């Protein structure tokens, strides 16, 4: 299989992807008991890595001795592209780096520009933004609920999750025109108002999704095999999580209640009851349970919002060219995957000088080497599935 070369020393590590990367293995034992680790590439094309993430692991039998994630396979230069686009075009672009939370990304950019221009966003727009952001959150979490089960071998919940996703996407399509990339936010509000019947359809959909979450509980959370695969697997202590900059459901599972919607409310989150489900052990099961809990919490928020949308306009009058005044701003939003940030530096022109995106997935996958050390290969799959990330978000 692979040749055995001597390692120059115990501390020098081979750069993954570099020359001879697959060749260096660690040799232990003498004579007949001689064993060597196997160096295996998980990805970039692999069913379990949620995209083109590559994890280079050193295996001792089925136990992972060391793991190194290699990212960058999906780098598209978003931040550079943003420097040549005006603010409405950027909103169309940022749909695409974390494609599962498209609306929340747009929201971050729109809020950043509005803060710099000191624009007053109408009430109706703020409330509808909360509504759509929560629907987007449910869409995102449903995707991960389905795919987590799929990676562990439960092939049915993914179809149920996608059935719900289809229904919700149809609902959002009637308002925004798109099923995945909404391009619904604008600087100063929303593109256009909701179509007639949207709120009633929303109400019906909330009841529908609520019954279905009970199905996911039966099929996954309450399943003993699932519990055996995920309980105690990939336990993340809260201090380590905070050190790595983890956010979102992965952080809540470790017991830390940091949520942007509660600590730094934007839009109308300060007038809505936001329930943040917490876990105790920080293992994969808690992460999954937090995800399910967040779906129910989002449904509750939607129900609160549905009656409170005031009549009025949904956007403000903008100047002919939207130019953010000189300055900089950092905006934090609670994206479904964690805390997303946009650092916008403007020099007064109609395109930004710099748009830096702080993406939650990038910070979340930093803890993968920590979690994978000492885990088995099947546990690695459970861990990768439970650290919710989208590779487009990691690489931008």
């Amino acid at each position: 299989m692979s040749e055995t070369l001597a390692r120059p020393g115990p501390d020098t590590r081979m750069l993954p992807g570099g020359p001879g990367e697959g060749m260096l293995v660690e040799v232990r034992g003498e004579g007949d008991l001689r064993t060597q680790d196997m160096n295996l590439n998980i990805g970039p094309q692999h069913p379990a890595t949620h995209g083109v993430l590559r994890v280079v692991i050193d295996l001792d039998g089925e136990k992972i001795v060391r793991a190194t994630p290699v990212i960058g396979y999906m780098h598209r230069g978003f931040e550079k592209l943003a420097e040549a686009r005006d603010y409405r075009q950027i909103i169309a672009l940022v749909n695409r780096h974390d494609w599962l939370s498209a609306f929340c990304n747009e929201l971050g950019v729109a809020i950043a520009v509005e803060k710099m221009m000191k624009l007053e966003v109408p009430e109706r727009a703020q409330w509808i933004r909360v509504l759509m952001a929560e629907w987007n959150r449910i869409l995102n979490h449903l995707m991960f609920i389905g795919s987590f089960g799929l990676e562990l071998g439960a092939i049915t919940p993914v179809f149920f999750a996608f059935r719900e996703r289809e229904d919700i996407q149809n609902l959002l399509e009637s308002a925004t025109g798109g099923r995945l990339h909404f391009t619904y936010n604008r600087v100063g509000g929303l593109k256009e108002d909701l179509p007639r019947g949207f709120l009633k359809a929303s109400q019906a959909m909330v009841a529908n999704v609520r019954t279905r979450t009970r199905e996911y509980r039966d099929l996954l959370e309450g399943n003993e095999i699932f519990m055996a695969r995920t309980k105690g697997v990939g336990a993340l202590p809260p201090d380590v999580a905070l050190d790595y900059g983890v956010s979102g459901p992965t952080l809540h599972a470790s017991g830390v209640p940091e949520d942007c919607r509660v600590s730094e409310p934007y839009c109308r989150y300060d007038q809505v009851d936001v329930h943040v489900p917490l876990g105790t052990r920080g293992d994969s099961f808690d992460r999954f349970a937090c995800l399910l809990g967040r779906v129910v919490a989002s449904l509750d928020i939607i129900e609160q919002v549905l009656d409170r949308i005031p009549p009025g306009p949904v956007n403000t009058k903008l100047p002919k060219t939207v130019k953010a005044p000189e300055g900089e701003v950092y905006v934090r939003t609670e994206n479904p995957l964690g805390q997303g940030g946009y650092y916008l530096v403007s020099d007064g022109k109609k395109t930004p000088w710099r748009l830096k995106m702080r993406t939650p997935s990038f910070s979340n996958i930093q803890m993968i080497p920590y979690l994978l050390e000492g885990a088995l290969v099947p546990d690695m799959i459970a861990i990768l599935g439970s650290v919710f990330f989208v590779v487009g978000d990691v690489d931008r």
Partner: protein
Amino acid sequence: MESLFALDNLWLALLLKLALIVVFFLTAPLVVGYIEHKGLAHMQARLGPMEAAFHGIGQLPADGIKFIQKEDIIPENADKWVFSMAPGVALVPALVVLAVIPMGPGVFAEDLDVGIFFALAVSSVSVIGILMAAWSSANKYSLMGGIRAAAQLIAYELPLVLAAAAVVLQAGTLSLVGIVEAQNEFRLFGVIPAAYAIPQLVGLILFFVAALAELSRPPFDMPIADSEIIFGHMTEYTGLRYAFFMLAEYAGIVVLSALAAVLFLGGWYLWPGVPLPSFAVGPIPGDVVAALVGFGVMFAKIATLAFVMIWFRATFPRLREDQLQRISWLIFIPLAILNIVVTAIFKVVA
């Protein structure tokens, strides 16, 4: 019991039996495969194949034709001969076991005195095929799948064999036909006619779960685990060789379901004690009618057991390898031995 197909001419009889076994071997997995496509689909709130022929009946034959016309690829670093022979080694034992499984009164190729022993021994040869495929593929994922398969399949041979041994003890014969006849005469508490499923309920559960593990079906499909190690030992296979592996899996389902039906569910009898209709219908003689009805009953039982296997596949995630092993060695094997001991006691006392 004499086989229906025992003609006067030995060679003609051999040819006829061979032909019938091959036909059954090629068609029964297709039926089970179709049940899997449609059953799995409806459990997942979707429709399954609908385009090929009527409601997708032609899907599996179409897949077979597609596989036949595919390019034959052997990886460069692979061990050519071992790689090529592995699907055959995995497939042929299933074919051979079908020779002893009775599908009806007289509907079998040969009634061996050591029927169940032969069946279990031959079916464990297919494990070697899996290991050959894994090792010769020159692929780290295949190797991991093969190692998992080796551990798992050996671990679950024991509960399978021990559960069958308890039935053999109760029936008093190793011959499969003899076991069916013994169930026909069995009376629970001396009065109620029942198949061995009731006194041997533990054995049935053990046999069924061990069969799932032997076939690498979920929740025991760690060796295949298509979200972790792509497809385990079958990763590098394509075309007809891959079709043989798939055929081996479905044929294995048919074979082990048939064995479970014979050992525990009363074989071709609708219910023990209820004789099969053996009156002549038109030009067809009575024993042929009984054979046909018996075959139908057996096929229905096989289909039901296959459906339960598919039901399990749709519902459960897969168990981790070490959890698998722990269940087998620490729970199943002691239970199986306990089952044998209790059966023996009852056999001696009652």
